[in-house]
């Protein structure tokens, strides 16, 4: 029972309190670049979530059962980058061949996922913090749900900001970053949940 609670807490923590975008500021490139239309933001969020979960599923055993016993834990970043790049390519190839409709909505965002540091950050955090396999999967699930939630919320806000009258100097990315900062402050409020 306590293990189930720890699993659920890790998901909620990764999603709200320790949100990958708003508290660790990983993956901001796609967050700012794609987060101006809800549909593209949702597609990007789904694609990134899928790769985060799959990468965590492979990277944790690779580190703990192969790299550490071999005395090569310093190769973790290199190994994770290889795993993520291969995963994104294979997923992209599969989607391109088998699902034209999915390719239509995700295709142009797929290459961006390889360079998304949120994916590498989660895999690295799972091993650096010494989490068990189940907890690292919970962390991956929570982080990806948090990424999806925040990128969609941000897209909704940016759609409204596009039509708002704002000073010329703030138009575009400056206003997006200010909005992200205010969202980060709002999400800090969730830290009180555990106390």
């Amino acid at each position, binding site marked *: 029972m306590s293990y189930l609670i720890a699993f659920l807490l890790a998901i909620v923590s990764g999603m709200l309190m320790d949100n990958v975008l708003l508290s660790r500021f990983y993956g901001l490139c796609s967050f*700012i*670049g*794609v*987060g*101006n239309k809800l549909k*593209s933001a949702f597609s990007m969020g789904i694609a990134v979530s899928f790769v985060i979960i799959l990468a965590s599923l492979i990277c944790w055993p*690779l580190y703990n059962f*192969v*790299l550490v*016993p*071999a*005395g*090569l834990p310093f*190769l973790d970043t*290199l*190994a994770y980058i*290889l*795993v993520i*790049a*291969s995963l994104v*390519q*294979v997923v*992209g*190839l599969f989607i*391109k*061949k088998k699902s*034209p409709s999915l*390719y*239509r909505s995700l*295709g*142009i*965002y797929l290459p*961006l996922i390889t360079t998304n540091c949120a994916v590498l950050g989660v895999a690295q955090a799972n091993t650096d913090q010494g989490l068990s396999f189940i907890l690292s999967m919970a962390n991956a699930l929570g982080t990806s749900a948090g990424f999806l939630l925040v990128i969609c919320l941000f897209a909704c806000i940016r759609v409204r900001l596009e039509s708002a009258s704002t000073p010329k100097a703030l*138009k*575009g*990315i400056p206003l*997006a970053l200010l909005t992200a900062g205010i969202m980060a402050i709002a999400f800090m409020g969730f830290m009180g949940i555990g106390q």
Partner: protein
Amino acid sequence: MEKWVYILISVVILTFFLVVFFWSFVAYKKTPLPKGCEDLDKEMKSCATCGEVLCPRKKKED
């Protein structure tokens, strides 16, 4: 198990991922675009997904 066996396994696994990456990269490039997605290629080339408003190339295309 001996340490060198683990090192060998790591090298084999990393080489495997490297081969998978290059194979899928080449296969991705060779696969023709699905029907109805031809305009996506144009979108990609015109940087439609990029949000960088200060990029000189994007300004030119707009």
